[in-house]
């Protein structure tokens, strides 16, 4: 009896909470038309999102070159699914990712970098920096674990320094401070500087994850390899890394998802990421400021990609368990 009462109570609470959003988003919303149609209704103005969708997703990317985006996305999703679903060796997978990244850059080349806005910028920076950060992080971890003297100290210093800095600080350094310290006439494009910041940050985070993986590999493994007369590089590539990296793939995917969300910080250093393009879309006097609708839209975009990544990561984990 009390259970039934509790159920009804919870149902009532849920209706009470969800009634407002439901009315706003479904019953009273406007799906097409203009600003004046929206003003007549109390609900969400989804017509605004429809009208501004192109601007929010692609920013100032020229309309007549949108066909290039098809190539980009084909390559992006194909390489993403290949990476997570294929059973090939991780080196091969990374090789394909790297190749696809070069291919994507090639697709986008006819358009000036400053016009790679919105979702495109987010995906490009995400993929590019993760791609470089992964091997770099692995390298740092290996040097930290097995290196000696200067190399080891350098690796520890770099990892700890970067981990001690907030990402936003690194981005500010890269976008604002660095150009002031460069010699005259030197100009590194801003996007490259930001890539640098993201790569440093992610590789330091990944290095610590890989270190955990490396420490799991028992000392006996090394001794066994030595007694077989295997050389150090072979030992590393064939025995240590496979045992150290595979169990760490799931936390690595997590770092990837975090990185994906962190790309939104680019807006603070005036890069036109999704948040910035959606703000830009709000600056139109034909439409009032439909802030909520526009943020809701980019929330969905972020959710889609993060969910996709975590779903694919989960598949990877399940397969790792079967193996």
């Amino acid at each position, binding site marked *: 009896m009390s259970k039934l009462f509790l159920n009804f109570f919870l149902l009532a609470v849920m209706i009470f909470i969800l009634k407002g959003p439901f009315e706003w988003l479904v019953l009273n919303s406007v799906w097409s038309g203009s600003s004046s149609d929206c003003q007549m209704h109390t609900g969400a103005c989804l017509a605004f999102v429809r009208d501004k969708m192109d*601007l929010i997703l*692609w920013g100032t990317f020229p309309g007549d070159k949108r066909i290039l985006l098809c190539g980009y996305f084909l390559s992006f999703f194909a390489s993403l699914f290949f990476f997570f679903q294929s059973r090939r060796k991780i080196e091969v997978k990374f090789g394909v990712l790297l190749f696809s990244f070069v291919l994507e850059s090639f697709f986008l080349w006819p358009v*000036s970098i400053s016009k790679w806005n919105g979702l495109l910028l987010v995906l490009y920076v995400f993929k590019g920096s993760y791609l470089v950060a992964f091997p770099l992080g692995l390298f740092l971890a290996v040097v930290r674990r097995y290196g000696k003297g200067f190399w080891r100290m350098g690796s520890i210093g770099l990892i700890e320094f970067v981990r001690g800095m907030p990402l936003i600080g690194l981005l500010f350094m890269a976008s604002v401070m660095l150009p*002031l310290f460069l010699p005259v006439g030197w100009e590194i494009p801003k996007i490259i500087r930001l890539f640098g910041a993201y790569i440093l940050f992610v590789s330091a985070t990944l290095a610590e994850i890989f270190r955990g993986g490396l420490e799991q590999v028992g000392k006996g493994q090394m001794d066994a390899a030595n007694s077989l007369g295997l050389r150090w590089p072979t030992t590393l590539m064939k025995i240590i890394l496979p045992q150290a990296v595979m169990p760490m793939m799931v936390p690595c995917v997590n770092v990837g998802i975090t990185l994906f969300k962190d790309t939104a910080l680019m807006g*603070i250093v*005036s890069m036109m990421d999704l948040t*910035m393009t959606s703000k830009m879309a709000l600056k*139109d*006097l034909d439409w009032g400021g439909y802030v909520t609708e526009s943020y809701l839209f980019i929330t969905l975009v972020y959710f889609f990609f993060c969910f996709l990544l975590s779903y694919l990561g989960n598949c990877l984990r399940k397969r790792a368990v079967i193996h």
Partner: protein
Amino acid sequence: MVAQSFNLHAGTLEKVKKRGTLICGVSTGIFGFSSVDSKGNWQGLDVDFCRAISLAVLGSKEKVKFVSLSAQQRFTALQSGEVDVLSRNTTRILSRDTDLGINFGPTIFYDGQSIMVKKKIKVSKVKDLNSATICVQTGTTSELNLTDYFLENKLKFRPLVVENNEEVFKAFLAGRCDAITSDSSQLAAMRLGAPKPEELMILEERISKEPLSPAVRHGDDAWLDIVSWVFYVLIEAEELGINSKNVDSFKTSARPRVQRLLGISKGHGSYLKLDDKWAYKVIKGVGNYQEFFDRNLGEKTKMKLERGVNRLWTDGGLMYAMPFR
């Protein structure tokens, strides 16, 4: 270190010519000054001014790359050489002109700060706002002006400082503050963006002067000359009645002033290291100041601003072109 690097940035003109594009710092979206339409094209008064510079230097209005900058970031971007010119709704003030290592060109829009309130709180003068909470955007001159004005008039207020333009306005609409302050052109735009504009009212008093001017780096006088004189072309053309549509008919004009401006007789290009047709290209490409205003802020746009002090000096305004001689 930072101060030194300013002087090393001479030669922007050569850099721009070599690169073939002008890099222009604009806002991340300010109504009427620099914003992006649904098709992804930049528009606004500041944007048109960048196009005018590009026409004068490179001969085409398409050769501009727009870099959007936040209020806090704009000066570093200019100092570090990331942008060639900052055309971003920036008030010319003493400290920026000196301490920040930048130089301002002529004022392209005279604005003034105002305060907007909801009609229902029944306030008609700023004095009625004693001990009110006022929303203000950080990193702008508005914050300082507000404090000064209230101190001068022995009034108290509580500031609610928010980083971002929309959020300031949202906070105001949500009733977190009694009033909101910004440049009057911006308040006019915000008001239009509100769900019920008729409930809001902009107080008539102007609490500050906001001469919005383009800026360049200190120590590059040749570049500053170009930026300044491109603006004077816009005013001079309006004074002479030349606009983008009728400019070709002026080619046969017998008036020496017109002939010199359009480069029909020996023009002024060589003084600025530009070709003699530079002013013609500017007028043909983007028009005179009247057209700038009508296209972006005037009666035909949603902003519906009056020319006010931005009229020509001959009509009692402040816009005055230095003589082209």
